[in-house]
């Protein structure tokens, strides 16, 4: 052992190891830092598949006759609020009555942002698409207005713009001849607000029936509920793994 200790130190080897460590650190550090930054994404960065935006709606807290979520959506996204057969409705209050028991329930219905969206499958041009973070959108630049997505959507979530529009919200471009639906207020999400107009309105009214968040973040409220409480997907039989879940149905 003493022989070994007395051996002269190989300085060259140490220098090489040091250089290697510095090089490795330099190579890894930006990645580690970027990963940290991904939690609060800068607007110019693409959406990340580490996130999946979702919503839980507790129908027991949803007040009968309250329409605040619908009004807020219309205001945020520049919809007229008209409810004719040809008018766009991105979110609607749906009243359901059990045919046997007669129990009535009121709930908001919107695009449920499926993991396997039929609207995306059928779209011929790829205009109907799902972002990496799970938000299902229509690319207004390549939608040709064929309406096959409206035929395919099991939730009747989509609307077709039937006439020219004026005074639009610049953040929410819409146009005659294209199909549109709830975007999970993608403009707010991309600004880092991480909420939607309907959820804000529901909270402001004191009902707190809607929760929006990242289903993949174990610390988020939505992930906690999904983990500990029973939630229901509408038309779960279709196996679409919806991003909007319900409680109390």
């Amino acid at each position, binding site marked *: 052992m003493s022989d070994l200790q007395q051996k002269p130190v190989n300085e060259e080897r140490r220098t090489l190891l040091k250089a290697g460590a510095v090089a490795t650190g330099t190579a890894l550090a930006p990645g580690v830092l970027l990963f940290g930054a991904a939690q609060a994404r800068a607007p110019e960065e693409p959406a990340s598949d580490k996130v999946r935006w979702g919503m839980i709606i507790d129908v027991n807290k949803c007040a009968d006759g309250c329409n605040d979520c619908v009004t807020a959506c219309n205001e945020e996204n520049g919809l007229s609020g008209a409810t004719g057969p040809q008018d766009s*409705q991105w979110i609607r209050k749906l009243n359901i009555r059990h045919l046997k028991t007669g129990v009535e329930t009121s709930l908001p219905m919107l695009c449920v942002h499926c993991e396997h969206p039929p609207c995306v499958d059928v779209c011929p041009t790829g205009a109907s698409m799902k972002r990496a973070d799970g938000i299902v959108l229509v690319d207004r630049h390549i939608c040709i207005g064929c309406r*096959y997505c409206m*035929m395919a959507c099991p939730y009747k979530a989509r609307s077709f713009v039937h006439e020219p529009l004026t005074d639009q919200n610049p953040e929410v471009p819409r146009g005659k001849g294209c199909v549109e639906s709830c975007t999970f207020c993608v403009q707010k999400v991309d600004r880092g607000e991480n909420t939607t107009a309907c959820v804000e309105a529901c909270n402001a009214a004191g009902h707190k029936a809607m929760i929006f968040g990242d289903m993949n973040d174990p610390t988020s409220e939505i992930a906690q509920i999904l983990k500990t409480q029973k939630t229901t997907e509408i038309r779960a039989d279709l196996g679409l793994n919806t991003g909007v879940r319900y409680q109390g149905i």
Partner: protein
Amino acid sequence: MLSQQYCLEARECKPALFWTLMGAGGLVLLGTLYAFFTLEHHGHVLTGMDNQIVWGLPHVFAVFLIVAASGVLNVASIGSVFGKRLYKARAPLSGLLAIAMLAGGLAVLVLDLGRPERLIVAMTHYNFKSIFALNMIFYTGFFAIVGLYLITLMDRSLNPWSKPMGMLAFLWRIALTTATGSIFGFIVARAGFNSALYAPLFVIYSFAYGLAVFIVVQSVMYKWNEIQVDPRILARLKNLLAIFVAASLYFTAVLHLTNLYYAKQWEFERFILLEGGIYPLLFWGGQVFLGGILPLILIFSPISRHPATVFLAALLVVLGGHFQMYVTIIGGQAFPLDLFPGYAESSTFYDGVVHPYTPTIWELLLGLGGIAIAFLITTAAVRVLRFMPQDDLKELELELKPH
């Protein structure tokens, strides 16, 4: 005088009739273009279509033309693939009608788009999981294959190629109609669709509609050119039509009987077969009786040897085909989506209620434009090239002997 130079034989030259027909077709097409630009300017707000009935009358005409286009090619296929002389003489007209009707049908679909000026986008952006995108490839391929097939049929030096090209065209058209039926078969959410049966159903419908259109067109061409068709030829064509019509009725029955076996489909079947207002009426009265049973009665009646009877039977099949498309496409959408089975639903977005639909004149004009385009292409082509079916009865003798 100019027009006379274009006709093939003196007895076929009826310039006044030719230009009257072209003028009539052109007028209808003008109306279609007027409707198109009006809708392009004002939007689909002028139509009866809405967020509930998203595909309307234009699609009824368009899908009929596309399905019949693939079916009309069967006449050529029987000639080239199975070597029947009777049908070989009719192969060029069959190919021409196939191209003309597909062009008409696709034109209607394009003119009805929300953003028709983005057709180039549809040609350059493909989502290959979409049956719609695959159909665009099938449709363009159909034009190319049938076009080449027509050349092999009409250019004597290329005649030997007509059999392999005919085989390719036959396989391609089966794939095309399978894909067209699947547009509806793949709609998982709606009770009226979502069935693998739609693919073979549309194939068999195409057999019937295509042959019926062929008989109608041939009858009119013969009449205008004062040609008497051999009754035995007519008998062959009408018997084949009867088989296709009966098979269509059979597949329709299977579709509904299958649905009647599934409890979850009962409400839809009650709607479409009994209580859905216009739809059961069009189904039983239009599709089944006028388009199915009555043509069969006419074909097998003692008066069926008369060309006018066969013509009427074929015309009824074409009419019934339009009723069928109306019931399938619009009836399938009129029945509401069931988001919560076991619950009654209501909302401002018309959940849980049967969706009404009243087509407007604009939609009718768009739809008629498809027929006008097919008509104009056929009329012009028949004028300048040899598409008129002409039989060499001596050669046919063997084939026409009773089996």
